[in-house]
């Protein structure tokens, strides 16, 4: 059986509208890439709220760990906590 890891994604900004919880927990195969993370992430959300806008929002969002924004080439080898950032607008 393939090993799985758990990635917990904490929601920020507009992503908070897609779940009643502040974070979602995802099961991914070990060595999963960012694209797999994205697809698993969007499937974990309230599907009644998913639209073309959600896909656009996902494509313009980034994932970050506790210290930096992840590269699109990142792979996941162990359980970890991430955050998802839609486009930012401080000030």
């Amino acid at each position: 059986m393939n090993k799985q890891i758990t990635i917990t994604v904490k929601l920020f900004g507009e992503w908070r509208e897609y779940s009643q919880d502040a974070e979602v927990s995802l099961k991914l195969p070990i060595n999963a890439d960012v694209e797999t993370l994205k697809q698993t992430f969007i499937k974990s959300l309230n599907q009644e709220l998913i639209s073309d806008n959600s896909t656009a929002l996902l494509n313009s969002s980034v994932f970050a760990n506790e210290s930096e924004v992840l590269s699109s080439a990142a792979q996941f080898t162990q359980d970890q906590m991430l955050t998802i950032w839609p486009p930012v607008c401080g000030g």
Partner: protein
Amino acid sequence: MSENFSINITEKSISLAEAFTFVAVESNGATSSFIGTIRNNNLGRDVLGVSYDVHKSLAIQTLTELCEETQRCSLDTLRIFISHFQGRLAVGEVSIVIAVSSPHRNESFVACRFLIEEIKHRCPIWKKEHYVDGNSEWVKGHALCQH
């Protein structure tokens, strides 16, 4: 963090006096500031208030990096104060204060402008507008690079 920087994410009212006191040093003869306040309209809609969502630890990290970038261009002469609000504000309330002091006026003007523009493009902060008609919407922001 450098003793020349004061960086804060706060749920309390931001003190302008604290900002100007922090940047006041005898070696710097110029102080510039940017004060962001909630306005009562956006894109033709009447606004009641704005809620700010912040990734606090990485926002502070990003603000620190921005201060360091700014300082490197000014031979370590700047004093920089940045405080950004987290939570809900009503129209007229202050969302961000940036104050910069420098030996001469140009550096503080340039630094202040650089900092607010970079904060809008790089800092993990999001805002949701609340309208008079009872609706609320997240404001479209700037997508970050994912190298």
